[in-house]
């Protein structure tokens, strides 16, 4: 299988600076299974990189290797030039600069929504409780959940829980956000509100790596698409190239399996109901 990395007509976003995250021949084995068989690609600052491909192709594993929740068996992951898996690296310092959003939300069920968002800053950044609560409240308002601050996660819908999880990750003011299939566990009617929050985050210029099966989102919001299969990157490029003229048969098979036949979708197709409440642009940071 050849890997095409054609120079796009427009330069890739952030390509004038060093990449924030780079994966260099990353290998990961589970017993005899090569979950990752030499994965190489980069994420530039300000980019939204979408990882797509069949289930079990290694996308989520790669994301977990990015912040050292999983160890690797070969290759390197560099975050802002520092080797994430080097024994001398303090993984905690790198992790707090990478916000992570999980498929199953993983909110802390014993804490209120507000404390779910504030617990990172108070525990890790040693921020005073009042300041952390104020920051948490601001973020909850941004994701449209200011009125849920005092609730416990169990009282929220899946979409609301995932928005809290996004706010929790943002509370650490990360340089890059990692999304691991953030809408796969959601009811169809709440997927939109989560994608909408993510799109606005992208519009603000947040660097994002998104493992997703939402092809509309990948095409409309993604700046760079990486296609995985059997633990390898089989194709990568800007969305127009990957979705409209995939060079690899495997990519074509995968997309057609999802019912994607290369047609252009109207911009309104990504239209997702805005979450109740506003999501203002950040005024200060």
């Amino acid at each position, binding site marked *: 299988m050849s890997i095409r990395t054609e120079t796009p007509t427009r330069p890739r976003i952030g390509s004038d600076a060093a990449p924030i995250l780079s994966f260099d021949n990353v290998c990961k084995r589970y017993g005899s299974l090569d979950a990752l068989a030499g994965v190489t690609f980069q994420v530039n600052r300000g980019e939204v990189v979408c990882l797509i491909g069949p289930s079990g192709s290694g996308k989520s594993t790669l994301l*977990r290797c990015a*912040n050292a*929740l999983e160890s690797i068996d070969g290759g390197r992951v560099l975050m802002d030039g520092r080797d994430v898996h080097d024994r001398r690296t303090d993984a*905690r*310092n790198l*992790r*707090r600069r*990478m*916000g*992570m959003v*999980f498929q*199953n939300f*993983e*909110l*802390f*069920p*014993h804490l209120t929504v507000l404390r779910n968002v504030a*617990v*990172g800053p108070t*525990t*890790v950044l040693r921020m005073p409780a009042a300041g952390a609560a104020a920051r948490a409240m601001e973020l909850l308002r941004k994701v449209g959940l200011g009125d849920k601050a005092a609730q*416990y996660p*169990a009282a929220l819908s899946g979409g609301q829980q995932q928005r809290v999880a996004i706010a*929790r*990750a943002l509370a*650490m003011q990360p340089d890059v956000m990692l999304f691991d299939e953030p809408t796969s566990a959601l009811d169809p009617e709440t997927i939109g509100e989560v994608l909408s929050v993510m799109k606005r985050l992208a519009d603000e210029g947040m660097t994002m790596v998104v493992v997703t099966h939402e092809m509309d989102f990948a095409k409309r919001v993604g700046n760079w698409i990486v296609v995985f299969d059997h633990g390898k990157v089989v194709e990568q490029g800007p969305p127009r190239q990957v979705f409209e003229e995939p060079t690899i048969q495997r990519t074509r098979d995968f997309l057609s399996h999802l019912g994607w036949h290369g047609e252009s979708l109207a911009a309104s197709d990504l239209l997702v109901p805005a979450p109740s409440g506003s999501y203002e642009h950040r005024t200060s940071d």
Partner: protein
Amino acid sequence: MTLDWSVVWDNRWRLIAGAEMTILLTAITMMLALPGGLILALLRLSPLRAVRSATTWFVEFFRATPLILQIYWMFYVLPAAFDIRLSEFATALLGLTLNVSSFNSETFRAGIQSIRPGQWNAGLALGMSKPQVMRKIILPQATLRVLPALASTWVSLFKDTSLVSIIAVADLSYVALKIRSETYRVLEVLTAMAALYCLMGYPQAKLVDWLHRRLKVTE
């Protein structure tokens, strides 16, 4: 058969003092055995193999042998073999605490291991250290989850304190059995003893049930 309940009434202050000793032993033992059990549970989850297996042996010894034997052993062997001389009360407390800590450690360990790995990942991904995740995320959830099990250990402990009467600690059982042998009013004294245990034990069980309902975390 004629019953003479005046035996119970006449000895009421002794019985009450015995009941106080029973409560005192239960409360102090549990106050020590909760942190004790937690520490043992954390040691059993240690990354160091030697620490893990030493703790496992300790816990399994106290779980696999009868409490009455443990109390006897501490009463006779500690002074004879190690020249450690403790009062009867301290000996009783030590035996109960080691025993209940061992049971509590298994309860805590089960609770900690029942929390899904995703909760660890969520804490670590925020940049927390493992001890921070344990303290802020895992233990609060695990403790709430095992509260009913800790409660039934508490109620068992409350009843098991009666075993310390064998080394002459003046708890409710010791006092009641002594009154029985002084007066030969077996039926009255044992019935009063049963009533006193039940009166004290039932509210404790109910209180913990109530706590559990109140603190319940839904997912």
